[in-house]
């Protein structure tokens, strides 16, 4: 198998799930003829027809509402947000209705909400966001944020097959920048499981999505200085794989969290709390955060570069922590 891009991996997952299961439909803005703003749904219309590839008006609440209604009759809709920033437009529909259904009235909503997220491509303040933490605070949702083509495909398949509403964040910086050979067989990557990307003993670096690659780059540089960092890819933020995190920190005794989301209220804070509660005596240093600035995502390349974490920032913070 030739290596495929992150984007192609997601498209393959949609294609294979739709081919195998007529319950799966796709709904969103410009998803049919145009194939979506980033072409993730390209080719689906030709294969599956108008009934299963559904264009909508610019109405995010209607997209989520309709997907939810479809799921109540046993379908498994995959709803696209043209940019994940627009998910704020249907916040109420998702958090107050879809997410609460199973707990309140025994109404599971097996649906996926997917869309391109993240910065680094000069998309500006309304096309670069990482809004995952708005939803991490909502019981009933699951949140997936992959970093590799293999994971993107396997996690998308698992998300479609899950009986709960899953928010699937696709970092647009990764869409066409990374390639990977992936197996031809039907596999899934289970939700709620982190993975150790690089083993190490001096400190643990937790990350996800595009920042996972930044963290690995920093880990290579650290290795040259004799610092052996363990890098963990969270993959699913909700539910969070506490076991893998704790296991690693109990081994390395130090933890650095790297995320592209802004600092205040980012998942690093939640992880700090978990480590305080469950691994306090194992820690030989403070939990350190390398994140974006607490500002909107700025447009100019110089500003965006200052806003985002990068390998150098991770390297500096990790080295300091290692020597703490």
């Amino acid at each position, binding site marked *: 198998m030739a290596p495929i891009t992150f984007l192609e991996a997601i498209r393959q997952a949609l294609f294979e799930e739709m081919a195998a299961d007529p319950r799966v439909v796709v709904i969103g803005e410009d998803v049919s003829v145009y194939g979506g703003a980033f072409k993730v749904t390209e080719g689906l219309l030709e294969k599956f027809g108008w009934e299963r590839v559904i264009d909508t008006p610019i109405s995010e*609440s209607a997209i989520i509402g309709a997907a939810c209604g*479809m799921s109540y009759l046993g379908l498994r809709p995959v709803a696209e947000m043209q940019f994940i920033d627009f998910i704020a437009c249907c916040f109420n529909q998702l958090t107050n209705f879809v997410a609460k259904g199973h707990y309140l009235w025994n109404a599971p909503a097996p649906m996926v909400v997917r869309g391109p997220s993240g910065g680094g491509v000069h998309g500006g303040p309304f096309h670069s966001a990482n809004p995952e933490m708005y939803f991490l605070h909502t019981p009933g949702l699951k949140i997936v944020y992959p970093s590799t083509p293999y994971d993107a495909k396997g996690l998308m398949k698992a998300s479609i097959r899950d009986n709960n509403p899953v928010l699937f964040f696709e970092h647009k910086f990764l869409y066409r920048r990374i390639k990977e050979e992936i197996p031809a067989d039907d596999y899934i990557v289970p939700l709620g499981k982190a993975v150790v990307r690089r083993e190490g003993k001096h400190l643990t670096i937790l990350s996800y999505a595009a920042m996972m690659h930044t963290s690995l780059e920093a880990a290579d540089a650290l290795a040259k200085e004799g610092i052996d960092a363990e890098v963990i890819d969270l993959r699913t933020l909700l539910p969070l794989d506490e076991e893998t995190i704790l296991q690693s920190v109990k081994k390395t005794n130090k933890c650095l969290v790297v995320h592209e989301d802004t600092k205040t209220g980012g998942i690093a804070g939640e992880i700090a709390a978990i480590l305080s509660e469950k691994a306090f005596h194992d820690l030989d240093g403070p939990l350190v955060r390398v994140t974006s600035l607490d500002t909107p995502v700025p447009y100019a390349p110089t500003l965006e570069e200052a806003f985002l974490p990068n390998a150098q920032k991770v390297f500096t913070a990790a080295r300091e922590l290692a020597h703490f």
Partner: protein
Amino acid sequence: MPATETRSKAKLSRQQYLDLYYFMRLNREVEETMTKLFRQNKIVGGLYSSLGQEAISVGTAYALEKRDWLAPMIRNIGALLVKGVPPRDIFTQHMAKFTSPTQGKDGTSHFGDLDNLHIVSPISMLGDLIPVMAGVAMAGRYLGQKIVALTWIGDGGSSTGVFHEGLNFAAVQKAALVLVLENNQWAYSTPVRRQVPIENLADRAKAYGIASYIVDGNDVVAVYTAAKEAVDSARAGNGPVLIEVKTFRRRGHAQHDPAEYVPANEREYWEKRDPIMLYEKFLTDEKLLDAKSKKEIETKITALLEKEREFAENSPMPPPELAAKGVYCTGPECHDLQPKWERPIAELQPPKSSTKNSWPPYVPRADFGVPASPIQFVPAEVLASSNGAKAATASAVSAKVVAKPSMKQLKKSSANSTAASKKPAKKGAR
């Protein structure tokens, strides 16, 4: 159309007329029982009354078939009863009992039943259920089920953004959705004239290119007749229908609200138009109801509610450990989610579509109009075989007026309850 016409068109059997009466009475008695429970401090949260609006919940839900779906608002208890919800479910919900449909996790009429009764639970943020029910209708069409989805919105809720998103999308999709807009004149304490600058909310249908009705919401036969036409039309594939029912919220927003802001003459006007009183007079005049059968119905309701209330009162509160349970579906052992296919799955599996990946060519028109959607939502053979195919394709641009209330009409109806209005009222009867 005048009420006299709708009544002759209704063609209900005596039993159906009496069903409507039974459910309206049951609706009111269930709420009366809850008012007593509320005063005894046995209702945990708020209590929202539909006093004077029973004809709407009952008349619209009665137009649905068993397979159809509904999504009520908090005041549509009558619709739940018609759909088959036992009164005990409503009592236990309000009393937060473990035996309630949500086991005490939510109150009031906030519960649903996806498997049997096809009820989608209400949400307090009004309007959200409109796109949800559009999705229900679309999924039903995809599965070949020929269902109709019906939901309600108030004059207040009609100002939400999601009302527009949902109704517009449903209209574009030609989804089998019936939206009943209960104009009860008040959104909490704000009168409708301070919410919208138009007299008839049904006029909004024109903007969505869908059919609409304006109905006297206190005339159950008029409500039923319009709803039945709308349901048949939606089922036949003609797209959504908006029914504006004019009525009045006789109590406050909830029990805590004495609604002193309502002008006395407005209340007086509508109290004289009590839907149950009007319907009783109609049934008596038409010799459909006599003292004996009325007594039988009352006895039946009293006995039923006594039993149901006792069940609710004797039910336990949920155990505290339930609070932490049930956020996620844990998989097939929790819910085995299989749709009910009513079309050959071979049409879809394996996929053999080879849809052309392009929009149809542009056809210039002198009036700048656009060609119709290329998407065939309902297979032609399904349309042809549909029972409702011949049902009224209500005009997409003008609301049909079904017995719009007026003082003149009130005088007439007190003189002769069958002659509500010989001609439609001026406004909205274009």
